């Protein structure tokens, strides 16, 4: 994640090759380390049950592909998500069904922060669904997600947390914008300021 743009393009090419049959362990390893870090240190998380379920669901996904290296990638159906980064560049990526938008971003070196590593304790993976039709296809956010969205920078009517949006067939072709300090997507313009 520290490479400059050219190495990002380079690693994206490597990942493209990886999908065509080579093993790419960068993203998976990084994420397993992240999730491994957070689970033991959460004795009192309110939404623990939903997070554990979420973690287990994705952990199973990775474990399954790790044990069947040859068939794993071909069997998992993929959709296309188009990230629109802070400079307005469109970056289409192939995302396996079941993967969260945040994981997909990290797998493809998209600059989307995930400070709390999917524990619903921050709003840094905030993405804006650029098409209302696609937004409506998503399940309603939970209270916990809405609580975090309340505090998101540049909140819009179609904002979601990337760690809570899971790739599904209906989302194929969705455009997700990453909010930027220099380009404000806010519809209502209000930025709440608690701490």
């Amino acid at each position, binding site marked *: 994640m520290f490479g400059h743009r*050219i190495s990002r393009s380079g690693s994206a090419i490597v990942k493209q090759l990886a999908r065509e049959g080579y093993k790419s362990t960068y993203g998976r390893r990084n994420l397993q380390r992240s999730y491994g870090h957070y689970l033991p240190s959460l004795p*009192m998380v309110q939404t623990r049950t939903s997070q554990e379920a979420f973690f287990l669901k994705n952990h199973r996904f990775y474990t399954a592909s790790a044990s069947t290296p040859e068939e794993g990638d071909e069997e998992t159906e993929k959709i296309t998500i188009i990230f629109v980064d802070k400079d307005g560049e469109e970056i289409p990526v192939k995302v396996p069904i079941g993967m969260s938008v945040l994981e997909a971003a990290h797998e493809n070196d998209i600059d989307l*922060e995930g*400070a709390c590593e999917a524990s*619903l304790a921050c709003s840094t993976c905030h993405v804006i669904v650029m098409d209302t039709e696609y937004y409506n296809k998503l399940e309603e956010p939970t*209270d916990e997600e809405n*609580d975090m969205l309340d505090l998101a920078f540049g909140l819009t009517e179609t904002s979601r947390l990337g760690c809570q949006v899971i790739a599904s067939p209906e989302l194929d072709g969705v455009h997700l914008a990453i909010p930027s300090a*220099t380009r404000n997507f806010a519809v209502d313009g209000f930025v709440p*300021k*608690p701490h």
Partner: protein
Amino acid sequence: MSRRYLARYLVSRYFSSSVSSRPLHVCIVGSGPAGFYTADKLLKAHEGARVDIIDRLPTPFGLVRSGVAPDHPETKIAINQFSRVAQHERCSFYGNVKLGSDLLLSELRDLYHVVVLAYGAESDKDLGIPGESLSGIYSAREFVWWYNGHPDYSSLKPDLKSSDTAVILGQGNVALDVARILLRPRTELASTDIARHALSALEESSIRKVFLVGRRGPVQAALTAKELREVLGIKNMHIRIKETDLTVTPADEEEMKNSRIRKRIYELLSKAAAAAGTSESDPDQRELHFVFFRQPDRFLESNERKGHVSGVNLEKTILESAGSGKQLAVGTGEFEDLNCSLVLKAIGYKSVPINGLPFDHKKGVVPNVRGRVVSQTVEGLSQTERGLYVCGWLKRGPVGIIATNLYCAEEMVGRISEDIEEGVFTSSKEGSKGLMQLLEKREVKKVDFSGWEKIDAKEKQMGSEKNKPREKLVTWEDLLAAAAAN
């Protein structure tokens, strides 16, 4: 990955490589979220950037370590990302280095092309009312630093045994944090990273009732939904809210219409008030009272214990419009007393000025134009310093969450990039090398990141013996000794 995207970046990279790969020596003062997100984005944006982050404490991470409540471990996960930044080959952390005593701002500016001040807000707003210096009255920040093991406050020794009541002035998330720590069952706190001296004090505490006092109404309360939902869900803790306080005026309706968060908070508080009416009283139960429309007029001194607080005299308020949808509290001349033995002021932080730096005492920030420090104002026009920037609370005032610094840092790096393009940083600077020489000459016992890792490992090891994620080292001596150990 589109081929056109790749080609465009290859070309722009070729042309900008001469600018961005020249060494750019950066020093960031302060290792909290503002400092680390700035370092992260600078390292990504400029190949030539070499970043040193200094902090007066031996431990990094600012309020993520010393401010976030012990029962909110998931909020501390951000430390993982910050650690990766500190371990970057072009980044270094140096703790136990204090700007103002170990080195001067002018010396930093001589050594580095870019100096970013991100040292936050280490002081508090005052109420400025009589009795404020009575013992038993603390700022919430002092209390939070005490239970979080900040080495400057481990000997605070707040008195938690003189009565069953504490009053908290303010209704933001910090107020909720301290209320929770005062009222949570001790067994729950025992498995967090709360400092040992605080856990012992809380185990003997007689505090059972906490009053959260706000000068305005539920629609204006600064707390946020997640934290409110959390206190409403704590077992055996009874919430008390007066139904009459929940009446909304047209001005309130307008405020809620314009703010989704205000509306959601109000709905939660209404639900809580309705549920609260039905619970019964029992002597050992814990109570959290939300008191609205009351502002403190003066503190009352105890007759039995001279010099110690025994209560707060509160004035009832009403709200008046202050233009553009804002409502302010105005006193009505009606007063009442609220007895207590502990008062915590959670009314906001304030930054601390340093020598050689312009400071806006009213707003409590360093005057800046979108991050560039203002050197002087000539005929109403601000002239900014080249190479001196502010980020985080020192720039914006003490509001916002950890994530707010992401955008603050992004804007900051944008400013620095503009200045690089304009050729502001052409002179050669010594950077790290010069800093090391200066610190050695002054015999400063700096703590680098591996020193922090030793502290971290020791705290985790001590914690594992007690079923805690860590047992914090709470004195300067212990921290420095652990950092220097082999």
